[in-house]
């Protein structure tokens, strides 16, 4: 099947990364089999562990989608981290502001407005790219710093809740995303922090997939991403499509922040993101920018994150090895792109020589 063939290389990259990771573990004098067994146990060993994996995967699905969407338009949204901070900020503020409303009003409203906040944060970089060609890597990264420090300032000052801890006030329950165990309490799920943001993420991934498959928006984004000159010739506005694409990317990243605040912490504080925006880049690369593939890719990274502490505990392997494995996955995925590029280049030379 085509799906299996396309998934072949990313799967291979993951396996190779695990292999090299094992070599690293051996080099530090530890046992790789025990280490990976602990990793698997910590990620999937029981309902609580699975819940943990799902919890950690959820923001990565959104940031993965954000970066992947950008890549389809040939835009590198490296500032997803900043957009997610703004999304989280919006959720924290609106959560309190709309706290009095019933949940079926406040929850969708906060989700939509939080996404818009993320989009707004990407708007200026998008405009700069479209109008003067300012590279989005630089502009979105700069905006990322602005967002982080803005949140830091607000959380320490104006938006600080009652306590001395730098965090915003708790958002009322009507503005939160429930956890699975609460909703499915009749089944008797083990308590876990996995929340409905996961379902939202899957839904959004499907919507993005549908956008690319069946809508003019998706068609134009892909055309501009592949060949802006041909797109222009076809009457597509390259600048407007660029703006739309980067703003949608920002919205998706914003949603990552929104669900973290609404589903996990119910408030905003400085360190609420452990680099989700940047890990999202790795997720997008592994998923090869396909919206549906972002789901398993995010789950993989979520599993690594969930199983890491267990690995550290059981096999005495430092947590940083997880970062090494992540890096190796990216490296092998990138290597495949490089290898394919060279294979295609030689094939092209063959065809042009044959002419």
């Amino acid at each position, binding site marked *: 099947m085509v799906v299996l063939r396309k998934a072949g290389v990313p799967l291979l990259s993951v396996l190779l990364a695990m292999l090299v990771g094992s070599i690293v573990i051996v080099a530090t004098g530890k046992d790789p089999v025990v280490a990976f067994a602990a990793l698997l146990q910590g990620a999937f060993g029981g309902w609580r562990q699975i819940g943990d994996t799902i919890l950690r995967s959820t923001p990565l699905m959104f940031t993965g989608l954000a970066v992947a969407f950008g890549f389809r338009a040939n835009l590198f949204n490296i500032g997803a981290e900043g957009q997610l901070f703004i999304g989280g900020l919006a959720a924290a503020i609106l959560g309190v502001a709309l706290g009095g409303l019933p949940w079926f009003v406040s929850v969708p409203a906060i989700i939509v407005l939080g996404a818009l906040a993320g989009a707004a944060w990407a708007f200026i970089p998008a405009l700069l790219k479209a109008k003067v060609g300012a590279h989005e890597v630089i502009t979105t990264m700069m905006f990322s710093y602005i967002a982080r420090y803005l949140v830091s300032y607000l959380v320490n000052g104006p938006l600080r809740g009652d306590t001395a801890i730098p965090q915003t006030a708790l958002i009322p329950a009507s503005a939160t995303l429930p956890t699975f165990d609460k909703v499915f309490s009749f089944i008797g799920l083990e308590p876990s922090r996995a929340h409905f943001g996961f379902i939202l993420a899957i839904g959004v991934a499907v919507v993005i997939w549908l956008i690319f498959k*069946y*809508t*003019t*928006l998706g*068609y*134009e984004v*892909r*055309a501009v991403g*592949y*060949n802006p*000159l*041909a*797109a*222009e*010739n*076809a*009457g*597509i*506005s390259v600048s407007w499509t660029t703006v739309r694409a980067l703003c949608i990317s920002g919205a998706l990243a914003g949603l990552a922040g929104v669900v973290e605040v609404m589903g996990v912490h119910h408030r905003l504080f400085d360190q609420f993101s452990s680099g989700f925006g940047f890990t999202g880049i790795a997720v997008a690369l592994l998923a090869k920018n396909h919206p549906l593939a972002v789901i398993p890719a995010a789950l993989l990274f979520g599993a690594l994150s969930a199983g890491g502490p267990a690995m550290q505990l059981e096999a005495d392997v430092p947590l940083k090895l997880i970062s090494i494995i992540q890096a190796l996955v990216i490296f092998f995925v990138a290597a495949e792109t490089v290898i394919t590029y060279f294979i295609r280049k030689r*094939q092209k030379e*063959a*065809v*042009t*020589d*044959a*002419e």
Partner: protein
Amino acid sequence: MPVLELREITKKFPGVLANDRVSLSLDAGEILALLGENGAGKSTLMNCVYGLLAIDGGEILVDGALVRIKAPRDAIDLGIGMVHQHFMLVEPLTVTENIVLGREPARLGVIDFATAKARVRELSERYGLRIDPDARIMDLSVGMQQRVEILKALYQGARILILDEPSAVLTPQEVKELFSVIKSLTAEGLAVAFITHKLEEVVAVADRIIVMRDGRTVGETRPSETDEVGLARMMVGRDVVLSIQKDPPNPREPVLVVESLSVMGDRGLEALHGVSLTVRSGEIVGIAGVDGNGQRELVESVVGLRRPSSGRIELKGRDITHSSARESIAAGVSHVPEDRHRRGLVLEFDLAENLILGDHNAEPYTTRGIMHPVAIGETARKRIADYDVRTPSEHVLAGALSGGNQQKLVLARELGRDPELLVAAQPTRGLDVGAIEFVHRRIVAERDAGKAVLLVSMELEEIQSLSDRILVFYEGNIVAEFASGEVDDETLGYHMTGGGGAKLGEQPVAASARGEAGR
């Protein structure tokens, strides 16, 4: 003894046998033309001889001795030089620097430019290739740059010179000069092999002609023994109509009216100086001119890709001067761009997606932003059949098609829209004889159906054979106008290079007056 001999050369690529047991020989002092369509294997063969590709079978003999050529260095050491279609020159450096690149005369690491320059002058005089050794490549014309490439090969000691499609980038005058250079080279004892698909050149300059098709040699002949029709038949394998027979034009009302159009080019200079022209329905107006004389800016203004700085463009009375590309398409302008890979197609899209480019957000393909794959697929299949695009299905990626089929795809899309005006820029660039015939027939069919066609081409044969009226562009002005059949290639070439003496503001040379002005 032949200076170069190829025996049973075979070269395979994944999925294609590019050279199938090809044998040929080349004598000193001989001009051999290697003729064939795109994809025939001529460039592949010569690239093997030059060491850019490795052969899978067969033998190469130089001066009767078996040789192994693994890299261009080996070929150069054996006295084989090659000038490619795409020059390998360093633009900011001078002629001398480029010629000695890699083999600089040096003493203790310091380059001896005096010796280098002297050597370049010596070669240039000996072979009649006049050039200024201190000129920078970027300041030279394409014809001169080619000369530098030839001198480079000679400097490296070439006794066998291979030229790959040398005339593709030259004006008619430059082509003549090239041929006389080739003749003087062979008079000095060099052997020259040149690859081409242009019949008239082969007949004009070659001593011997070898025709290749589908990776094999299909015939060897001399200009005295054959003619263009015979050669075309050998190239394609069937009778080919070289010059489209068309009915006399029946032009009706004006469709495109361009009035005093001035357009800025990319470098801040004005590229079009107040140009005016008209194209009527049922008429093909051909614009002849060397690339870079304002034709591109004219085309881009008409199709909405560039804003004119002053003047007016009207399509059937409607002002489209400042229309965007989308608005132009909606108004009825179709554009076959000069570079199908850059502007014409999205190579990573499949054929169906490419066929709706430009119409993708309108009915019946889309309703309020949602696309209808079924309707798109149906139209795609129909167009692919109508325009004879050779492909297993409409889901193949456009990048996988051959050049000819890609161009047919672009035509299918642009003509399928039933436009009022077709703007075709270099519509047969890079296509072989069979594909050219197809494209030309379709363009004439459009004209016979009452459409207006604006044709821009650097191929004089195409301009002559298709146009009802010919306008010559030079430095942003129309310097001459002729009716079809009233002017020969030489006169056109003369005007194309500014020979008509027309300056800014002067009236263009009219057809009746050309007899005096053109001589």
